[in-house]
């Protein structure tokens, strides 16, 4: 399985995606710094505590990498079907389920890693920014940092699986556009926030969506051996 994943990453030159993901992280940091400065002027609500700041960062990061995952799905899975290169792949003496599972695992692990790393990077970056700009008064306590970290990891786990939901819409017509558009809808669902309250903070929502993502992945490979690859 590891070898199949390596081959996938080689085939699609994962390096360029890693670079893009890093750039996205930097942009998010810039955005956060900008918003927090303006919000401060406006006496707005979100950036009153580290807790809230990390919540906003996590939401932004999550939204970004869900869309990112859908781009990966569209390249790794949907495009293979669209360009018919899947016929090449399915003529190898390898279980088709494993081939697709390897692709999806690449997407899931990429999203998981990107989500956590970007959260840490932007979080630390914001902390440093705050030392100079003093957006949030008072020091960052260990307990806040620890709880935030735990939340980030849990939320990243859920995010990595729910980012597979767009696969369902993409596979229906082998359309990359449908994949990305549906990912935007997912983002709209899990990243909205009203006065600091988000649907995502109800614990059942992220877990339910993550399970849905896993189910979509399972559905896509369940029958793959018994169907015609291309009509």
């Amino acid at each position, binding site marked *: 399985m590891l070898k199949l994943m390596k*081959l996938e990453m080689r*085939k699609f030159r994962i390096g360029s995606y890693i670079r893009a993901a890093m750039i996205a992280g930097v942009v998010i940091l810039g955005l956060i710094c900008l918003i927090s400065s303006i919000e401060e002027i406006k006496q707005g609500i979100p950036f009153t505590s580290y807790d809230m700041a990390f919540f906003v960062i996590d939401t932004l990061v999550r939204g970004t990498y869900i869309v990112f995952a859908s781009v990966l799905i569209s390249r790794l899975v949907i495009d293979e079907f669209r360009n018919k*290169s899947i*016929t*090449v792949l*399915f*003529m190898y*003496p390898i*279980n088709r389920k494993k081939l697709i599972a390897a692709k999806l695992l690449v997407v899931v692990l990429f999203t998981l890693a990107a989500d956590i790393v970007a959260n840490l990077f932007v979080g630390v970056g914001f902390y440093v920014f705050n030392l100079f700009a003093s957006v949030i008064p008072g020091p960052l306590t260990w307990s806040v940092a620890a709880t935030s970290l735990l939340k980030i990891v849990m939320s990243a786990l859920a995010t990595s699986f729910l980012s597979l939901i767009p696969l369902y819409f993409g596979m229906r017509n082998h359309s990359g556009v449908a994949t990305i558009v549906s990912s935007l809808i997912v983002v709209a669902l899990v990243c909205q926030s009203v006065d600091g309250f988000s649907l995502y903070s109800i614990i059942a929502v992220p877990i339910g969506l993550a399970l849905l993502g896993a189910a979509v992945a399972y559905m896509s490979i369940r029958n793959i051996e018994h169907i*015609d690859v291309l009509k």
Partner: protein
Amino acid sequence: MTHIVRTKQLTRAYRGKEVVSNVNMNIKQGEIYGMLGPNGAGKTTVMKMITGLVKPTAGEIEIFGERLTDTSYRQLGRMGTIIENPIFYEKLTARENLELHTEYMGYHNKKSIDEALELVNLKGIDGKLVKEFSLGMKQRLGIARAITTKPELLILDEPINGLDPLGIKELRDLFKMLSKQYGITILISSHILGEIELIADTIAVMNDGKLLQEVSMEHIAKLTTEYIEITTNESSKAVYVLENYLHITNVRVNDEGQIRIYDCSIPQNELMKVLVMHDVAIEAVHKKKGSLEDYFLSILNGGGLVA
């Protein structure tokens, strides 16, 4: 002789319409098996079913002596294929494509890539993306990919599409060489009779999803014998002379009054001499060979055999 591929009553239907019906193929080890038929005859669909890309509606396929099921992956490792247009990862170079191929096939002999590229005569492609290739080059690369892993069975669907006449000859020689020297069994399809005729050991004629005839080239060679055709106005008199003085019985007169003599044991000048002696006016004499084309056209048209 053992069979590499056998199909029994192989059928595939799309929305109730059969595109392949009850095909029974028997491909022997080491032979070049040519599938001949017009576009849409079902050749590609049969090949897709053999490689598992399309599932049969009915019937079964046996490859390397084992029945092909939905999860027969091992057999795929012993085949090399090009189906329809060769497909590659266009954003990678030719070599990267072949490297990925050998990795997936679990074939670890780095030299084989160079050998295959040399065999198909593909040069100066280093650093070039497949995207920039012409159809002919892709076709060559496809064949290179199919033979890199030294398969036992090579499945080639219209492999000469997009190639120039010189390239066609080159590849024809290559296929023959692979078959003779490496003992690779080749299943090849084409709608061009001349191509199949030149390389196949066995020909399967398909039309409308049906396999009309599976026949060895040796057998065809026997059927399509030489004959002498005589054009004359006095055909009945000529036949009389031939039968009574030369004792030739294998004679036929066609609608236009031409006489065909299938007994070639009597030299042509002897024939002429006797006919002239008996005052038969001859307009023309030709020595002809029954063409394969006649033979296959008659099969395709649902008729019997020529001659």
